[in-house]
Every structure is written in structure tokens, then in C-alpha cells.
């Protein structure tokens, strides 16, 4: 159907245009006044043509705003991508990247880091490791249980381990210093990109790409998974191996971005839905659309987070406040598109 194909091409063009537009807006807005001279000097220095020392405006542009905008796009794309992978894998539209406890585990790592007064890198490292460890634990438990329905056992194990990690977070809150650590824990669990640095991106971006590569390479087979395990097996797909790869890849993407951004809900659940309404349920088209949309949405939300007031508005609050009504409106339009 060439007509539908043109439609889909135009959707992709639209999504890319939206991303470029939000990128420009996000770069242009911020509390520190920047002018074109700062930006052009920064660009020239990038190509080795800069002279003299950097002006404060240049420092702000290169070391504060660029990394933050890049991080917002990366976090949004990664969470939406991971959400898409999980939803396809579990054939369930209610699944979010936290279904197997990665964000809760990362949250526990971060609050432990705060409790132990670790430096920022230590807090992020612990968040990343505990995020991965939580999902590994869930996977091992579900493998040991030999359930009849593998997906159900996985999800239930995720719920159980996630609840345990949540209880540990509450315990840490009780033990934390109420003047110093408790506010930090609260803010971390609500998500923020206020402290993102170039160095953080240099570590996290390769990890996200490492998680993305298998998803892209295996996109056809992952799409086949959405037909059901038996059908996929009949088509010659090694279901359990593929499932392990998808879980590993999506978990890696989520854990690495959550380590720098804190827990941000809604994106991984909502964005794949909206993308599905635009391009349909096929994984090979859904993944890029979802990631593009997630990046744009996160950029929009983060720009609001840093400009609504002098102080930062937590991202977790904004994604829900903006996302929930919009999502409801979309659902109310009554387009049943879950394939």
C-alpha cells in the first residue's frame, strides 16, 4: 500500500522535525543569558579555531546547556526505547521499563550512595549496578522457578523483587539524616538533570548505544515475538535466548540513564503508546518512532523543569502532570491501536 507508506514516511519526517525544533528551543532557553557571540565562539573552538580563554557564556553553553540538552534527549530516547522493547516482549501495553525492577533497584543504589555520603560518581555507579543487579536477580529467580508461563513468572518475580527494593528504600529513608540526606533522597527519586556533566554523558551514551545495538539488529525477530511464544518458535526463533537478550539490552539502557537522571516515570509507558498510534505496532518502525518521540518529550519537559521557576521542578512530577492528561485525551479519542 504505497499510500500508507507515504503516510509513515511523513510521520517520521514530522518526528525528526519535532526533535530538531525542541532541541533548538531547549538550547536557546535558560536562566543564564547567552548571545550569538558565545555560541559561535563555542562552535569555532569546537573546530579548533577558537582563541583566548572561554567567556562565561561560552562555558555555560558548552559545559552546562549542551550536555543537559543532550542528556535530556538521550534519557527520553532510552526510556521510550526500553519501554517499547519491554511492551513488545511481554505483549502487554501496561508494561513500563520498571516492570522488572530496574528503576527501583537503581533508586535503592542511589539512596544507599546518598546514605553513605559517596561522591556523585559513586552514587551514580551504585545506582547503575544495583539497577542491573535487581533485574539479574529477577531473571535468575524466574529461571529457577520453572513456571509454566515464563512471562508471568518473570513479571511476578519482578513485582516481588521490586517490592523488596522499595521496602529497602523506605528503610534507608528512616535511617537517613533528616536535615541533609532525606531531601537529597526525595529529589533523586523524583528525577532531575540539573547536575549533568559532559563526563556523565561520555560514560552513559556508549552504554545506551550498547543496549540499543542488539535491539536494532534483532528488530525483526523481536517483532515476531509479539505474535506469541509458540508462533515465534514455529517461525524458528530461539524464544528464551531472544528474551534474555531483549531484557538485558533494555535493562542496560534504562539503568544507565536512570543513574544520571534519577527515577523518571511515565515516559517509558506512555511514549510507546503514542508512537504506536502514529506508526502501528511493528517493532522495527515502533522503536525509532518511540525513541524520537521520547527524546522530544523529555526535552520539552526538561526545558520546563529548568525554566518554570528559579528552582528546578522535579522531572517525575512534570512527566506525570503533563503526560497523564495528554495520554487520557489520546485514549478518549478512541483509537484502538494495540496490535
Amino acid at each position, binding site marked *: 500500500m504505497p499510500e500508507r507508506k507515504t503516510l509513515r514516511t511523513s510521520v517520521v519526517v514530522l518526528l525528526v522535525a519535532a526533535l530538531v525544533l525542541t532541541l533548538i528551543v531547549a538550547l536557546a532557553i535558560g536562566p*543564564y543569558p547567552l548571545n550569538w557571540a558565545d555560541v559561535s565562539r563555542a562552535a569555532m573552538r569546537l573546530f579548533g579555531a577558537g582563541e583566548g580563554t572561554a567567556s562565561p557564556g561560552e562555558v555555560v553553553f558548552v559545559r*552546562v546547556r549542551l550536555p543537559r540538552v543532550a542528556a535530556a534527549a538521550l534519557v527520553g530516547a532510552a526510556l521510550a526505547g526500553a519501554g517499547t522493547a519491554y511492551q513488545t516482549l511481554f505483549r502487554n501495553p501496561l508494561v513500563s521499563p520498571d516492570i522488572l525492577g530496574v528503576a527501583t533497584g537503581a533508586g535503592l543504589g542511589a539512596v544507599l550512595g546518598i546514605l553513605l555520603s559517596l561522591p556523585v560518581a559513586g552514587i551514580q555507579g551504585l545506582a547503575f549496578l544495583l539497577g542491573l543487579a535487581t533485574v539479574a536477580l529477577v531473571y535468575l529467580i524466574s529461571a529457577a522457578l520453572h513456571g509454566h508461563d515464563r512471562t508471568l513468572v518473570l513479571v511476578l518475580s519482578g513485582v516481588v523483587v521490586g517490592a523488596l527494593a522499595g521496602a529497602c528504600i523506605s528503610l534507608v529513608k528512616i535511617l537517613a539524616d533528616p536535615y541533609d540526606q532525606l531531601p537529597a533522597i526525595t529529589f533523586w527519586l523524583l528525577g532531575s538533570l540539573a547536575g549533568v556533566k559532559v563526563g556523565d554523558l561520555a560514560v552513559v551514551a556508549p552504554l545506551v548505544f550498547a543496549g540499543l545495538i542488539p535491539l536494532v539488529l534483532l528488530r525483526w525477530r523481536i517483532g515476531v515475538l509479539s505474535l506469541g511464544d509458540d508462533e515465534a518458535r514455529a517461525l524458528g526463533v530461539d524464544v528464551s535466548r531472544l528474551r534474555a537478550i531483549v531484557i538485558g539490552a533494555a535493562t542496560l539502557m534504562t539503568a544507565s540513564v536512570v543513574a544520571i537522571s534519577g527515577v523518571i516515570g511515565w515516559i517509558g509507558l506512555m511514549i510507546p503508546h503514542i508512537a504506536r498510534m502514529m506508526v502501528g505496532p511493528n517493532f522495527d518502525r515502533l522503536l525509532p518512532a518511540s525513541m524520537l518521540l521520547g527524546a522530544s518529550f523529555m526535552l520539552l519537559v526538561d526545558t520546563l523543569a529548568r525554566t518554570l521557576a528559579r*528552582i528546578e521542578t522535579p522531572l517525575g512530577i512534570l512527566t506525570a502532570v503533563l503526560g497523564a492528561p495528554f495520554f487520557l485525551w489520546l485514549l478518549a479519542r478512541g483509537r484502538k491501536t494495540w496490535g
Partner: protein
Amino acid sequence: MPHLLAICLLFLLSAPLSARELGDATGRTVVVPDRVERVMAAGPNAAVPLYVLAPAKMVGWPSAPRPNEREFIVPAARDLPELGRLTGRGDTANVEVVLKAKPDVIFDFGSVAPTYASLAERVEQQTGIPYLLVDGRLDKTPASIRLLGTAFGVSERAEAIARYVEETEQLLNQRLKDLPEAARRRVYLARQPNGLETGLRGSINTEIIERAGGVNVAERATGRGGIANVSIEQVLAWMPDTIITWDANFFASHATDPVWAAVPAVVNKRVFLAPRLPFGWIDAPPSINRVIGLRWIAGLLYPDRFPEDIHQVAREFIKLFYQTDVSDAQLDRILAGAQPGERRR
């Protein structure tokens, strides 16, 4: 239940021979025994004035002194048990544990908002132990200390402490009264390892910066001030000339960070680590331990108006308030990073 309450009240009212009525900061009348020997602090905020006024009458700590704090606390109070908080937010004290400690009086020092007044009432009804709620704001401190002195039967000591607080306030008023608005230092409070958590203007966390004549750059948009996250871009836009932090990680790392290096306070090497021993100097808890922080910050911001050596001031404060003699080595440790120039580590 109502008649049980009536019996309690009757019991309390029928014992006027050995008890006094005190009006606390909420306007409640609390009946306190004549001889108070055992006192419980409801939270960390109350533990400091209790330790300062009557260490021998403490029944325990809301949270036990940490290892690095112990050496500054008199032996009688050092090993008292940890009883938990009773202050309403995130309570950790078990009422049975409270009853087992057999305090004659429970008191809290801090907010006297209706929530806390009703909580005091509830605890009093549940335990039958009188519960005093005392205003912990900085400007109310001398009166609050005197009230506690009367309640605990340590009026003389309370008078000495209240005088010290009053004298500190008078000294600040006198030396800062002709300070032109343009000469006021612009201060940013950096919390957490990344330095991006701060207290907003008017919050209890930065009250003493403002009281010591500084301008807290983190102005609040609306409502009550509190703790907030800000972006480094916003800190740059505020251009603080002095940064006070209490985070050792931030203090150690800010100098090597190219973005913080553009902040005027960092350029001029005016980033100071707030002392935290034996109790916090600027906050944690926001109680009378902050009185020394007032002198410290005033000296940092306006050294020509406050030329006294902070070592000496701190030594006298710790002797008077915490009844401990500190050695030079201990003082150096307390004041590490808290001073400009060569002494800074």
C-alpha cells in the same frame, strides 16, 4: 475514653502541691512537676538545648551522638540510649519506649505551628507526661531558653545561655546596622556532593546567613522557603561572591570543576566548609547550636567588622554551651576548610 481522660486531668490538677503551671509557646498550659529530674527531647532540635541546659537530666538522645561527635559531649550524656524522634514527621520513637524511660517532661524546640501543637497534645494525652512545645526561631531563642530553665529548675544556667545569645544578637545588630545594601555579601548555600541543592531565602536552613548580614542569592518564587534543587546555570546567573557548603565531597571537588570555576565565589576562593562539630554550625539541627554559626558567618562576610579570631570565639562557645574544653588540634579539626587564606586546608 472521655472519662479516662477526665481522670487523667483530675489526677494532674489534683497534684498542685508538687507541680507548676507553665504556659508554652502555643498558649497551652502545661502542668510540670516542681522537681524535674528526667527530661526527654522530642527531636534533634530539642536535644541540643536540653544537652546545653541540663545534660544530667537527659534520659536519652533522639539519635545517639555519632563517633566523631562523642569526644565533645560530656561523659554523663555521651552513652545515653537512642530513643528516636517524637516530632510528628517520620516518628521513630515508640511510645512504650518513651514511657519506659520515665521522663518527667517531654519537650520540643522548633515549629509551634498547629500541627505540632496538636501532636504535643496527643502525646500528652496518650502518655500522661507533660509536653512543652517551645518556639525554636532564632529571635525567640532567649525567651525560650529562659522558659526551659524555669521548667527544668536550671534558671541560672539558662540565664547565662540566654545572655550569650542576646549578646551575640546585639553585637550583630550593632556592627551591621550601618552596613550599606551594596556592600552586603551575596551568599549561596551549597548542599549535596554536586552543590546543587540549596535552601531558599527565608527558609530555616539559611536563616542564619541572612541574620549574619548576607544576602541569600536563592530567592524564593512563592510561598514558604525550603530546600530546593537548582541548576548550575542558575547559580552562575545569581553570581554569589561567597559559597557556604556543608558537604565535604563538594568542598573537595568544586575547585576542579570547570563550570563551578566560573562562579565568582570560586574565582575568589571564597568557598567555605561549614563546621559540623559537635553539632552543626549553620543547620542540622536548626537549633541553638547555630549561635556560633552566626559569629562564624559574620566574620567570613565582614572580617573588618568582626575581627575576632574565630578559634577563640568557638573555644568559649563550646566551653559555655557544651561544657567541653577543646584543644588546639580539635579546634583545627572543627574549623578545617572554614576559614579564608592560609589556614584553610
